[in-house]
């Protein structure tokens, strides 16, 4: 379905844009943007269903498209499925799939973040010139906010598997 593909691709690129469109690609940024794209697919499906003009029968395809992408990534990295406790190192021959797999694990945390991902925007200040992210400094900034700190710990956990 073209709408699903458009939503997925645009959400990933728009996430880069929201964080820092001019930052060079890096595993950390790719994983965060992939997580955002996957979580957005589910939300677009919900918005599609709520729309008065979009055909409701197609709404479920967005979440199905997300599950298909996640399943393909899990298969590519040799993992049984995506869950928050199962991470694999982001390295090896299919780096793209590993980014998607790690992003999928992080997307589960974004699903639970109650629509507030503003903590991720604070990453802007901690993106280095090579695109890598000073996660420890970012987490230190989030410490005063329990909700943001919880998301920060999850991001740090996932990104610790990225190279």
């Amino acid at each position, binding site marked *: 379905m073209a709408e699903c593909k*458009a939503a997925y691709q645009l959400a990933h*690129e728009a996430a880069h844009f929201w964080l820092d469109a001019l930052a060079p690609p890096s595993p950390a940024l790719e994983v965060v943007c992939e997580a955002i794209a996957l979580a957005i697919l589910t939300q677009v499906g919900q918005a599609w269903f709520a729309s008065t003009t979009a055909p409701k029968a197609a709404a479920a395809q967005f979440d199905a498209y997300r599950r298909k992408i996640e399943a393909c990534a899990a298969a590519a990295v040799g993992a049984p499925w995506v869950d928050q406790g199962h991470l694999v190192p982001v390295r090896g021959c299919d780096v793209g799939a590993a980014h998607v797999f790690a992003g999928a694990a992080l997307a589960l945390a974004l699903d639970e973040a109650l629509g507030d991902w503003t903590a991720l925007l604070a990453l802007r200040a901690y993106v280095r010139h090579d695109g890598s992210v000073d996660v420890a400094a970012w987490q230190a900034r989030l410490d005063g906010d329990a909700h943001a700190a919880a998301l920060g710990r999850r991001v740090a956990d996932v990104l610790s598997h990225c190279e």
Partner: protein
Amino acid sequence: MAAFTSVHVAPGLPELRAPAMVLAALEANFCGAMPAHGARQLVLVRSIDGRPQAITNELANADGRYIVALAPQPDVRARPLATYLFKKN
């Protein structure tokens, strides 16, 4: 005020509802915060479809009004549906 004011789809591209929903969802999750670099319009074009990313970036930079978010690349498995241009204010 919402961060994005409009989504333009160039002639020749299919009418897609999803891009506007994607931007609305991002705005909602980011609590209306502006994206870095401040652009507030998205333009989907096909006119530079098929050109490598470097050439597309060069064209956009020469124009000066856009930041390229995604352009077709020769070796990707899932080819982009369109070139996404974020228009500077």
